[in-house]
């Protein structure tokens, strides 16, 4: 896959960073403002897709990346399940219990384990969407040879 012109590349470099940071903001403030793990994860995946489209890449490089993204999503979703199981050990001893302290509602560090769920779900969603996109692009590259 070929990249685009220099202007596009430069602009994308700027914009992708901003989008990435915005995605992280959305994830971290999931329990305070609209948005959360799903929205933020999709935004982060969008930033990566933008970079790949603008700069282009060859199938070999993309294959390495797809390995990374699929491993990342596996680890993230495993963490979600482990977090859910951890509730069996602490506190109320129920699957999916919110065992951590609730804190002061409205602050960044509050709502027990909800921010943690948001973070891991965000990573998982970003990884999954990126994996789907990369798999499509790699297939197109390899099969058109």
């Amino acid at each position, binding site marked *: 896959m070929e990249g685009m012109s220099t202007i596009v590349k430069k602009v994308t470099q700027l914009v992708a960073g901003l989008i990435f940071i915005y995605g992280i903001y*959305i994830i971290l403030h*999931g*329990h*305070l*403002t*609209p*948005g*959360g793990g*799903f*929205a933020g994860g*999709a*935004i982060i*995946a*969008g930033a990566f*897709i933008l970079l790949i*489209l603008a700069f282009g890449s060859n199938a070999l490089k993309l294959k390495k990346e*797809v390995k990374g993204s*699929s491993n990342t*999503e*596996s680890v993230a*979703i495993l963490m*979600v*399940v482990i977090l*859910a199981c951890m509730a069996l050990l602490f506190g109320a001893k129920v*699957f*999916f219990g*919110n065992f951590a302290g*609730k*804190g002061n*509602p*409205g602050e960044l560090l*509050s*709502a*027990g*384990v*909800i921010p943690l*769920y*948001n973070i891991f*779900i965000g990573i*998982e*969603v970003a*990884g*999954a*969407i990126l*994996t*789907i*996109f990369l*798999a*499509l*692009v*790699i*297939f*197109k590259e*390899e*099969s*058109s040879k």
Partner: protein
Amino acid sequence: MELTISIILGFMIIGAIYALHARDLLSAVIAMGIVGYGLVICFLLLKAPDLAIVQIVVETITLVIMVAVVLDSTRKEIEVKADRRAVLNLVVAFIIFAGLFYFFLLAIESLDPLGTHTLRMSETYVNGAVEKTGSVNLVTGVLFDFRAYDTLGEAVILYTAALGALTLLRLKGKKT
């Protein structure tokens, strides 16, 4: 409120019909995007900012994926010829549609009109939910605390789709 949404919905219906009849597949995909972005505006009007954010991002990514698939094809749809069997199918389909539509009208007659919704299960998700979950955003509270199990399922579905896409897009299925 109802009027605004109805007008947007009207545009969405026109977009949908155009998407189904466009000759060029790329225009069809873009027209579907119009329907999706119309949905975003409806979500905003209906006080669902969480959904608006998710829908706008997911719609964009869906469009990117679909355009990537369509872009290096011939992009032309071959016309459906109106032979006798197709016409007959269409007539049957429209009779079924008319029946479904009529039944839907009858069915929703007794239900709450727009804006008069009352709470039963979600009573707990709204009143005093901030003390229970600690989350100021009630939708997040529902998603990650009251119904976190659904959210796990949802994440698993996305994971499955990624795994499925990786599996389906292997070059070779069988070892030789």
